[in-house]
């Protein structure tokens, strides 16, 4: 029996976040916590996901810090201009955790490296998500 990994997706209703969420939601043994300031779009996305992937553990949350505290892995898909603000919100609760940062270029974010010095930051292009698998010890691409 393997313990479920919890993944918080911050920016779940952004185009990149939405695509990532749809791509990952079918992963077995993973629990998803979805976050977005657009609560209407988030409720609609959650409903769509529940309909498309019955049995998947997907929950919309309102507090980014609490969701990141619960999560084992954090997927960050917010616009670049918001990265610093989100990083400041979650920095206390993501020490030692994997923060996957998704952007179009796949280039590492200096802002995140600086703001989250004790997290493991992985940067991926949107297309690279498909190859991810979530293991007991973390994430494998």
């Amino acid at each position, binding site marked *: *029996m393997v313990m479920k990994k919890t993944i918080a997706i911050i920016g779940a209703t952004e185009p990149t976040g939405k695509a990532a969420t749809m791509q990952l939601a079918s992963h077995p043994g993973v629990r998803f916590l979805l976050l977005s300031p657009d609560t209407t779009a988030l409720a609609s996305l959650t409903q769509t996901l529940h309909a498309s992937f019955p049995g998947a553990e997907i929950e919309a949350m309102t507090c980014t810090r609490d969701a990141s505290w*619960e999560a084992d892995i954090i997927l960050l898909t917010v616009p670049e201009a918001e990265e610093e603000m989100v990083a400041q919100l979650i920095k*206390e*609760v993501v*020490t*030692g955790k994997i923060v996957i940062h998704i952007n179009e270029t796949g280039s590492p974010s200096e802002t995140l490296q600086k703001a989250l010095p004790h997290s493991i930051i992985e940067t991926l292009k949107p297309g690279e998500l498909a190859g991810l698998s979530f293991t007991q010890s973390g994430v494998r691409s």
Partner: protein
Amino acid sequence: MFEVLLGNINKKISLTEKEQELVKTFFIPKKLRRKQFLLQEGEVCQYTAFVEKGLLRSYNVDEKGHEHVLQFAVEDWWIADLYSFLTGEPSGYNIDALEDTELLLINGSSYEAMMEAVPKMERYFRILTQNSLVATQRRLSGNISLSAEENYKQLIAGNTTILQRVPQHMIASFLGIAPETLSRVRRQMTGK
């Protein structure tokens, strides 16, 4: 978030402000909701967990499906399957949250790195290991030589908070007695 852990450490050793800040960087903050698992049977135990807030139990399940509680852990306590943590063998235990819980987790490599970075922590963990050995010896000795009533008395002497927060059938399981026996012991003690 680290108040209870630093309080626990500073009761046993003395860390400078700088050392305290450094120690914090080796721990993973983790929230568990009630009924969620920190460890499930068959997995390798990757973390030793310190309880900042909440309550957990470790237990195994026998062939008949009966649960046997090995340990409860409330605020200020550590919990793990040390055998699995130290050997890398799959665990025979489950650890789940009986209340919403806030933990600080440390894995094997961070544990070693912390000892290198803050050598005083070796002494802290040595004291913890000694205390744990003494508690294990007392529990074993109680199980083989004391009556159910005496074991219950020993439990309530130092663990009133656990007794108020844990269902009676889990207390019975921890003591290795049937829930009916625990009820009888409690009635007898009330009647005295």
